[in-house]
């Protein structure tokens, strides 16, 4: 066991794995930020624009919610010309996650009592002012647990990028796997990958639960 640890966790191997982890986390961060912005827009348009743009947003959301992420990753990788595969794969993850965020935002918007809008209007707020100052702040407070759990899902989803050969955490683990021969070494590498993902996601899920419990006590 100690022997295997020495062969697996050499300094270059560990640095290589950490580099992959850094890529995974940076992709997750960029995807989460961008998809919260785009997803909120989609959710708002779907909820408040009943004509053309609302229908387009609805179609977008249903399309991405009912087809696999991997399909979009492969599609973007092979059908979008130019750019690097890392950007194209992450772009697919962003498009996909935005659809999920849109549904979360819509759920939050629908949970805000209608009276909030009416009260804002009666105070002379325009539609956009009521959204920005009254509705959205309350919506985001409500949906923080769902958004956080979507962050966990996004971190896990970046592992699909390994299928495109992008050097993120899972793929860098596979590269190290290709260099070892013993069963114990293979188990050690999988154990390490699983443990790192677990620690990151579990910590976030504890945050989700605490937030949820604290807020449901307040209600």
């Amino acid at each position, binding site marked *: 066991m100690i022997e295997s640890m020495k062969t697996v966790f050499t300094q270059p191997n560990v640095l290589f794995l950490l580099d992959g982890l850094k890529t995974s986390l940076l992709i997750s961060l960029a995807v989460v930020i961008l998809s919260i912005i785009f997803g909120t827009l989609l959710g708002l348009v779907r909820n408040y624009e009943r004509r053309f743009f609302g229908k387009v947003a609805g179609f977008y959301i249903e399309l991405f919610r009912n087809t696999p992420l991997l399909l979009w990753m492969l599609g973007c990788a092979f059908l979008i010309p130019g750019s690097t595969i890392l950007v194209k794969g992450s772009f697919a993850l962003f498009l996909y996650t935005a659809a999920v965020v849109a549904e979360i935002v819509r759920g939050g918007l629908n949970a805000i009592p209608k009276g909030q809008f009416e009260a804002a209007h009666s105070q002379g707020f325009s539609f956009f002012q009521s959204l920005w100052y009254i509705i959205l702040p309350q919506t985001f407070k409500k949906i923080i647990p769902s958004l956080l759990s979507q962050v966990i899902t996004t971190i896990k989803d970046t592992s699909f990028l390994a299928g495109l050969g992008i050097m993120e955490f899972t793929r860098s683990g596979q590269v190290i796997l290709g260099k070892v021969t013993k069963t114990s070494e293979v188990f050690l590498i*999988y154990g390490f990958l699983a443990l790192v993902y677990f620690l990151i996601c579990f910590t976030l899920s504890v945050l989700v639960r605490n937030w*949820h419990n604290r807020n449901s006590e307040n209600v």
Partner: protein
Amino acid sequence: MNSTNPFALWRWEALFQNFDNVGSGFLRTFQVAVLALALSLIVGMIIGILSTAQNWVPRSIARVYVEIFQNIPLLIQIFFMYNGLAMAGLVLSEFTIGVVGVGLYHGAYVGEVVRAGILSMPKGQHEAAYSQGFNYTQTMRYIILPQMVKSILPPLTNQAVNLIKNTSVLAIIAGADLMYAADSYASSSLNYGPAYVLAGLLYFLLCFPLATFSRKYEEKLKKNDSIVVDIPEVME
């Protein structure tokens, strides 16, 4: 000279002449999804019941199961079964890995849905059953679970949609599923556009009716003031 447009007509003709490949991939995806769903329902029911037990031992077992399977990416679990277990002498077919891997992973999510469902039942239901001389098993079997099924149907159906989508990870281990069939046809013929569009359409045909049913049924439950199990933490 054929057009080089990735969606040119001739590419579609070529795709439909090779429909058999994609068709058998679709069948494989369907089979894996049905069996994995059955497994995840069985596992989820057990985990859900264990996690609402009085005793802390079954509760901890359920907790550990859920945390491990929810917080490690599905792909790592699939790779482990594909490479790791094979190294240790347990060689499973891609089909088995699909059913067991996806089934156990979603079993954790179904377990959380079932747990929320049991907890959403009014306490009086348990007490009334006990007062009529039902024991724990009988209460669960005849009183709690049958009533709960209705209220957890929408989140369960959402799980089924996600499960179908997640069977596509099999493509990464050459699992002969729809995603793999479409992708290997695409890369051998270079007809990427039509192959991916067709695969997307077939996945959509499986998932969209389920997702629509889930939404409609939830709206109906809300309108009737029935108990609605809404668990934002269980998004996957």
